[in-house]
């Protein structure tokens, strides 16, 4: 599917489509390359996200030490560039003598798994809710949208802390809570886009030849919303990573042996006077990852949304 185009998915139906020859549309790959050459921030973003992905996927196979290995004799060693630092622990060690670099690499996986599954599932749930609300209308629409209002009126972080404190902070619970928080954005956007698109000529044409409402929604309307949803999803990914870290920081997130950057930060909070690196290293890692995801998100938006494209 050509996500670059926001043209109606049914070829040859609208006037625009027949007038404009296919070939004048830029190829996706060329667009990506051209925009990368111009947009240095996007390159930085891709590098940062690349490092994050590499740490999360192959990292644990390269850095094979156990992130939970405690060597109390080596506790509170500073990073290697400080006077007492040792090369074996490049980012230093924490109060239990665990290697901070190893823990950061392994923690990337937690944020990736939670981030991708929470955003992905929230997109699925939210888009479905949005399509159903728009296409069925009436009471169904009213119920789904009021649910969304309720969701938006609850301060999410409180809800998340409550649910996780009560049910326990496993990976699964964390993802479920984050889906609960995330679906609303997609539901609202998809609903309003579908309401708008279904009145367009290609949708009317599909209805005229007898396609069912759901068929029109899924085959003709949803593909036109994909770009928008991907853009929101990328920017939401940053929020989800921060939320995971925040909840782990507050002590209701994932439990050991699972490593979380947020929990590492919380460990470092008690050692600010004697060991600044315990909190600084994972915090800097989170910030750089979020920075990367935000930059990539902006870039994806510029590419996928032709109205914002400068050429």
């Amino acid at each position, binding site marked *: 599917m050509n996500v670059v185009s926001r043209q109606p998915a049914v070829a040859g139906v609208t006037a625009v489509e027949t007038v404009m020859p296919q070939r004048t549309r830029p190829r996706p790959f060329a667009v990506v390359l051209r925009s990368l050459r111009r947009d240095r921030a996007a390159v930085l973003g891709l590098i940062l996200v690349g490092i994050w992905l590499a740490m999360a996927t192959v990292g644990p196979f390269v850095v094979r030490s156990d992130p939970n290995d405690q060597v109390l004799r080596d506790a509170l060693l500073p990073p290697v560039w400080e006077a007492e630092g040792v090369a074996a622990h490049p980012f230093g060690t924490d109060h239990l003598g665990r290697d901070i670099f190893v823990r950061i690499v392994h923690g990337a996986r937690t944020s990736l798994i939670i981030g991708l599954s929470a955003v992905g599932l929230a997109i699925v749930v939210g888009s479905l809710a949005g399509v159903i609300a728009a296409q069925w209308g009436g009471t169904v629409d009213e119920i789904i949208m*009021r*649910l969304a*209002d*309720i969701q938006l*009126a*609850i*301060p*999410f*972080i*409180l*809800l998340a*802390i*409550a*649910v996780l*404190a*009560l*049910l326990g902070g496993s990976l699964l619970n964390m993802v479920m809570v984050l889906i609960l928080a995330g679906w609303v954005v997609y539901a609202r956007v998809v609903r309003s886009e579908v309401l708008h698109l279904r009145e367009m000529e290609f949708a009317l044409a599909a209805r005229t030849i007898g396609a069912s409402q759901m068929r029109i929604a899924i085959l003709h309307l949803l593909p036109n919303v994909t770009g928008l949803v991907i853009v929101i999803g990328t920017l939401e990914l*940053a929020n989800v990573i*921060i939320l995971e*870290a*925040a909840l782990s*920081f*507050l002590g209701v997130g994932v439990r050991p042996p699972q490593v979380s950057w*947020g929990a590492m*930060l919380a460990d*470092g*909070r008690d050692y*600010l*006077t004697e060991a*600044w690196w315990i*909190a*600084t290293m994972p*915090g800097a890692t*989170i*910030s*750089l990852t*979020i*920075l990367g995801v*935000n*930059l990539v998100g902006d870039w994806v938006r510029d590419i996928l949304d032709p109205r914002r494209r400068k050429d």
Partner: protein
Amino acid sequence: MGPYIQRRLLLSIVVLFGVTLVVSALLHISGDPVAIMLAGGTATVEQRDQLRRELGFDKPFIFQYLDFLTGVTQGDLGRSLRMNRPVVEVIFERLPSTIWLTTVAMAFAIVVAVPVGVISAARPNSFIDYFGRMLTLVGQSIPLFWLGIMLVMVFSVRLRWLPSAGMLEPSSIILPAFTLGLYPMARIARTLRASMFEVLTRDYCQTARGKGLSETRIVVGHALRNAVLPVITVIGLQYGALLGGAVVTETIFAWPGVGLLSVQAIQWRDFPLVRAIVAVVSVFFIVINLLTDILYAYLNPRIRYS
């Protein structure tokens, strides 16, 4: 406007029912509050049953919820299990600190973001523009719990300039307010810059230029007034979001507000207190959103809600 506000108010009430119902249900399925209250104690089964009856926890869930609603109509949101006081009292004791913190944070965000946003748009690629872009990027990328910790490390632990926790001194507000205000500052500056850019290319700005007005008068007198509309929405939404951010900020700085109280209440499994906090914060949230929408419609005569 009238019918629109009426409809919004009605919807808000429905939403509040939903919010309290969801939270009550969540807490209900999470376990027996009496067992948690008396955990490790030597209370007999009879004593436990009696306490359960006194607190109304022996009734089916739906009746407990109805009791709560009856209480609400009389201004009674329940009694805190931990402190054995009406939750309304406990919450309203803490509320001023949170309002103070969020207001200072927002004021700080606006005071920095508005000039930065305006100058960035009026003088693209200037020093202020680069500063603004860095601010936006950094402000949106640093998680506030890390920002808070780093500020404490630098300004409290190393330099010993500012207190790291509590609100005993007037200067105590500085670090938490900066921590909480950085994100809205970034969002406001970004929105204002984009919106100014768009407005400055409009015909009436060109006309003003043609009349020979100074660029400053065009920017401040003509463009800013129109560019500020989307910013109002962002400020409203961000103020609501600050209530959530206050939970983390207050925890880091031991700031005695509702945010810290809510985390404690959850840890104590203080069922009525959690429910009441969520209800009160939600009311705030809804009211702020409503005020934002009304202000927006009032300032922008082109939009009239039906």
